[in-house]
């Protein structure tokens, strides 16, 4: 699992399940929360998707604008917590 694969899977999930637009353009640095495209209801869905798809638990208080506003930030969070879990 590398960063690009995580971004691709997250992008597919967000486009299909949350935005309802499978063909929508979604850049890696495009803001999702601050732009209002996804809200706190949807963030919970992303969190559960990350748990099932990557087997990584990202704490709720990390899933905020500062850390998880873009696909790139979300992927970095997943990688960070995957690394933390591996060292525990």
């Amino acid at each position, binding site marked *: 699992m590398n960063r690009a694969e995580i971004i691709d899977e997250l992008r597919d999930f967000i486009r299909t*399940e*949350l*935005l*309802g*637009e499978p063909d929508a353009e979604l850049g890696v640095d495009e803001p999702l929360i601050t*732009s*209002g*495209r*996804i*809200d*706190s*209801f*949807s*963030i*919970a*869905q992303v*969190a*559960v998707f990350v*748990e*099932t798809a990557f087997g990584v638990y990202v*704490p*709720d*208080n*990390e*899933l*905020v604008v500062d850390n998880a506003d873009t696909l790139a930030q979300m992927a970095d969070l997943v990688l960070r917590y995957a690394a*933390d879990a591996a060292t*525990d």
Partner: protein
Amino acid sequence: MQITTFQFLFYWLLVLAVYYLLPRRPQNVLLLAASVLFYGTWSWRFVGVLGILTLANFFWARFLRKGRAPIPWRLWLGIGGNVGSLVLFKYADFFVPELLHLLGGGPTLEWVLKIVLPVGLSYRILENISYLVDVYRGQIPASRNLVDFSLFSFYALKLLSGPIERARSFLNRLAEPRLVDNDVVARSFTLLVIGAFRKLVIADTLAGVIPPLMFESPSAYGSWELVMGLLIYGFMLYNNFAGYTDMMRGLSGFFGLPLSSNFFCPFFSRNMTEIWTRWHTTLGLWLRDYIYMPLSRAFLRRNPNPRRWANVVVPPMAAMLVSGLWHGLSWNLVCWGGLIGFFLVISRLPSLWRPLVPPDRQPMWRQLLGMGAVAVAMALSLVLFIMDFNTAAYFYERLFFWTKWVAPPPLAVFGVALSLGLDICQYVRRDEVIFLRWPRWLQAALLAAALLAIFLATRLKPAEPFIYQGF
């Protein structure tokens, strides 16, 4: 020591003067001593209660992660101890009379159970719970510095009514060198003046024009008067609380300890979710992180269908009911939380069948309609926030008996216009200290006008209390 007094200002100016003479570690000791002394002016009993809670949480957090893996019962016991102390102190008024009645009463028992809520305890309990949860999850290590942790607990500029800070950021700030440059000073001073203006000029003016018995005996008023009274109260409450927060944030900035923002133009919220990012933000975020999100994830794990009713209804309702109970143990506040939760669920429903359209991308008419709908929803829920259940029911009933139009008092129009004007300035550039970008001569003129207005307002009548200190 009341906040809107010169005594308070001079006390903290004196502390600030000594603060800058010291290196960083003793600075934390000084701030802790100054905070404890300040809290002691309210009541030394409060200091004792908060001291015990601080020590209990400090040592319990260290015990939480002792061993190879975190043990859930330790966390639950820690949360239970904090919630229990809140129940004991905050809800004593509710259950002590019942308990006395059941146990047969008696002067000794009455003395033992006559408990006063330490000011700010409700806010501290939330901070303690988030600290224990974050330590349990391994997101932060348990603090090993009792002075820093005690300062996190007692810090006077956030103790009385928030903002509700997180240990992970606040303790880090305490461990770092303080940076107070010209920009920080300018920003802090601006926040201090804006806060004092909101509280002493806008909120206190609006408080003066609300008829004193309107929310106790609504039968004496027509529907228009009640609608206006409700709107004026909404603006008063906002400026009262936001003013307090800005003053504390401004003052704290001089110590190089920035505090979290709690309000940003809430009357411009375009949907019910947005308002919780603009009104009492730190409470909204706490509820999101420690009630809403864990519940939402638990339900989604059981059944990932986002349209399932339990996934849509239970988490926001639970979060808002907790919010109601946190504000106080009474039916009207429980129903207030339930009503806000209901509005959140309703506003969520359309997005289950079609994608969310970000508010910024909506046409202007729809944004304005959204703002109007949020304002109506919040005003309706405010009735339950300020009145007991029976009076609130009567108030709602009276709202629909239309009476002839009555012009609002000029002072109310003036206060609301000032509040909206200030908000518009901040909202347009999404900057709470936008005034710092304006020409110097305009800054000077505005500052002079604001200080004169604050001076006159404090001379004309004594300052009203801070409403959120009651929680």
